[in-house]
């Protein structure tokens, strides 16, 4: 199937995969034996091709096969560095969760098949129109859970922060940048394109799930000080933002607000491609840091901007984009999603829905604020000030091939922001195709420079003009700085209350940076502290240690009880299988007897 929707996702896959593969040439140098490297390249190739197959499959069977290949190959990639002890654990959590998701998908597809009697998309589409509403509701829920597991919707996100960081970095970049997006493709393709939205609460459910996903994802990201896990949690958040667009679009589709539905979906897809680009970039940068410094723990990093200037600049670009700072790409897509909420609230008749959309907008704004804080922390602690360990001090800039991979993605992040008017033009076509609306008359851009989400209400945004303003003013200020009354600049030590002995140990740490948030969100994070003092004498403390952790709420109160339940059920089942051959012969005998007795009945 090669309609605009599939082509868009193919483009996303290519945009992230190609730079990641260029990057991998340098990244893998000196890491594995040649045979393992060959294996890794082979697996990566299958992985990328399977994703391409997922988004182009034109019937359910092909889709499922591609989906399963993608899941299995990505599992092998997660456990590829099996010498790390966390790999096995991450792999197990990943494969179990992803198969629970696939089970729900299969159930949904079987339900659909009951009515369509065919696996072909072109046959399903008309058949879905005649499905009774309760069957459609069930299919919707199954699809949402099934794809939601892959996308990382809270509380199904549990595998994501384990699995994504564990793979080699260019794979993390493809997984976070693209693989979780195939789940969004599934949601759009099956729910919006094939089934069509026929209940008002579908959109509301998706929006609610998206809000929770955004906020939970970013709060956990703020608490994290493993660089790659922070990025993985932030992927959870960004999937939430993408789904905010998709969910709003579902709501508007049901209410027959067609232009708004196209706007919301286009905004969501815009954020999707943006996230693919900047999260791919950030994972590659994190990989460079890991390769250069040998650790992903931010508390051991710092000062890398001096030894790794290129990586730092690229990471800064990604961080600015993900924190939605103008004029980069994240800003445009978040602005568009906010506008679609606002305009939706204006055009929907129901007061409750208006209010709900306002809450969605506020939640998105809150997420944006927290994301800015999170990436100030990620960049500031990792790259600025003094190194916090010897490894960080001895880090060296990465080779050219890695820098090229990162550079291409950084340039894309800038271009996707500045070229907003063109991007939105293309996305309107994609969104129109996905939501089955004739979008040829819909346009959200003026003069190729300005984005204008609604004709007539005079709301404009032009990243190019903003960038022009910023650059012009900055140039003016720089001239002013250097021309007006030339004064000296003295290089001296950081002011430290007169001691002048600032070392890496005096610096603010990642844990300290996120402490206000930990206190403010303690109702959800349940942080606990442990201080240990070893006394030398009554007055003197010889050593002092302080630990703080947050309670993983979903694991502790949802998955652990569930797991215990499964294990106790398995324990019961085990009793009929005690390992005695006599008993097994007895079972066979009994079965034969029962069959003979029942034979006459059939």
């Amino acid at each position: 199937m090669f309609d605009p929707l599939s082509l868009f996702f193919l483009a996303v896959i290519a945009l992230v995969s190609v730079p990641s593969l260029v990057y991998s040439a340098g990244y893998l140098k000196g890491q594995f034996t040649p045979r393992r490297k060959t294996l890794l390249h082979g697996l990566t190739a299958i992985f990328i091709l399977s994703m391409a197959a997922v988004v182009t499959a034109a019937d359910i069977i092909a889709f499922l096969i591609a989906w399963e290949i993608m899941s299995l190959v990505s599992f092998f990639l997660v456990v590829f560095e099996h010498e790390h002890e966390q790999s096995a654990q991450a792999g197990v959590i990943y494969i179990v969760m992803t198969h629970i998701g696939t089970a729900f998908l299969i159930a949904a597809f079987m339900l659909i098949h009951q009515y369509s009697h065919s696996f072909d998309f072109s046959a399903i589409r008309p058949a879905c129109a005649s499905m009774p509403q309760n069957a459609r509701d069930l299919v919707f829920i199954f699809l949402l859970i099934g794809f939601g597991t892959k996308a990382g919707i809270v509380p199904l996100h549990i595998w994501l922060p384990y699995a994504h960081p564990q793979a080699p970095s260019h794979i993390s970049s493809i997984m976070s940048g693209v693989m979780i997006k195939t789940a969004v493709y599934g949601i759009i393709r099956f729910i919006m394109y094939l089934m069509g939205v026929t209940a008002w609460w579908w959109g509301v459910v998706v929006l609610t799930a998206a809000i929770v996903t955004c906020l939970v994802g970013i709060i956990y990201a703020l608490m994290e000080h493993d660089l790659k896990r922070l990025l993985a949690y932030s992927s959870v958040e960004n999937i939430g933002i993408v789904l905010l667009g998709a969910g709003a679009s579902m709501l508007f589709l049901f209410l027959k607000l067609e232009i708004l539905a196209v706007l919301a979906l286009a905004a969501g897809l815009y954020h999707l491609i943006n996230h693919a680009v900047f999260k791919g970039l950030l994972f590659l940068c994190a990989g460079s840091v890991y390769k250069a410094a040998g650790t992903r723990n931010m508390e051991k990093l710092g000062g890398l901007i001096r030894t790794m200037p290129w990586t730092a600049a690229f990471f800064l670009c990604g961080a600015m984009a993900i924190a939605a700072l103008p004029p980069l790409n994240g800003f445009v897509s978040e602005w568009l999603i906010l506008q679609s909420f606002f305009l939706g609230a204006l055009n929907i008749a129901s007061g409750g829905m208006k209010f709900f959309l306002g809450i969605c907008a506020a939640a998105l704004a809150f997420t944006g604020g927290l994301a800015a804080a999170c990436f100030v922390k990620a960049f500031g602690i990792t790259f600025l000030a003094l190194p916090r360990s010897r490894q960080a001090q001895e880090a060296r800039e990465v080779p050219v091939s890695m820098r090229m991979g990162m550079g291409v993605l950084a340039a894309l992040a800038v271009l996707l922001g500045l070229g907003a008017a063109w991007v939105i033009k293309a996305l309107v076509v994609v969104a129109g195709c996905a939501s089955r609306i004739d979008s040829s008359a819909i346009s959200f851009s003026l003069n190729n420079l300005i984005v204008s989400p609604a004709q007539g209400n005079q709301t404009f945004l032009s990243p190019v003009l903003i960038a022009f303003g910023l650059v012009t003013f900055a140039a003016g200020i720089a001239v002013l700085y250097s021309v007006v009354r030339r004064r000296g600049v003295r290089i001296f030590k950081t002011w430290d209350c007169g001691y002048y002995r600032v070392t890496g140990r005096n610096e603010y740490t990642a844990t300290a940076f996120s402490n206000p948030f930990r206190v403010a969100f303690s109702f959800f994070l349940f942080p606990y502290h442990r201080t240990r003092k070893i006394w030398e004498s009554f007055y003197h403390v010889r050593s002092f240690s302080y630990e703080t952790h947050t309670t993983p709420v979903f694991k502790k109160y949802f998955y652990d009880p569930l797991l215990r339940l499964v294990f106790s059920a398995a324990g019961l089942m085990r009793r009929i299988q005690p390992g005695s051959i006599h008993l097994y012969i007895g079972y066979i005998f009994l079965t034969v007897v029962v069959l003979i007795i029942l034979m006459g009945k059939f």
Partner: protein
Amino acid sequence: MKVFALFIQFILLCSAAPLVSGIIARVKNNLRMRRGAPVLQPYYNIVKLFSKDEVVSDTTSWIFRIAPVVVLSSSLTALALVPAVISGNGANLAGDFLAIIFIFALGRFFLALAGLDAGSSFGGMGSSREMFISSLAEPCVFMAVFSLFLRSGSTNPEFINAVNYPHVATVLAVFCLMMVILAETSRLPVDNQETHLELTMVHEAMILEYSGRSLAFIEIGSYIKQMIWFSLLAHILFPASVAVSSGLARLGVSAVFFIVKILCIGAFVALLEVVIAKMRLFRVVDYFGFAIVFGILAAISSLIGV
């Protein structure tokens, strides 16, 4: 003519921005029965900073050097989007109310990074707190803008202004925005511009390492930011801007109105700062809780049409 008028307005707003802070400081001092520094003191400070050498820490990187430029240029860019005396502003093709908030985030982001760059704990503390406070303020602003939007149908600041007033919703939204503005311009009860006490400072801790011209740029950036917030607020409460074509007399009246509005807001802020005390950092959560309640109430009253 129009471009020229806009240019003049832009220059005047820039140059008047420090004056607002000077007047607020003067009013505060007079309310405390002190004589206080002259209202032009902010200008003297800027001139003084420009004529001084600059000290840069040897642990810093280029982030520290470009942050003042980014802060000031983002403030100036945002200022270009704000209608003050003249409406029909061509610059609103570049962005709306939401874009202004996003542009502020750009300056704040770099300032917070610069705070971390010097490596002392003060800077880190300041940037951590600044990001904490601003992230809590964000949903409040959007809730308030949302409630204004429901009536005006556009996030273009001029359209928000064009709504005839005063509705309950507008007043509640202004309450919400006022609380946010106090935090954004680092004033009491969230922050205190007048002190350099380690335990309480937020904005000042972040820029502690700056001196000379760089500090002057950051200061000018914050004056302009304050000017932007005040003029946005002034227009939401009492819309009065006019088109350039409507004659010099109308323009003059509009200008006088604008100055009076800004002065009123400044005096109100000064009065508030004199009568309330600084809050503990973690009380800020409750503070913004109040703000968002105002925002939600504004949205609800906007929905029921009062």
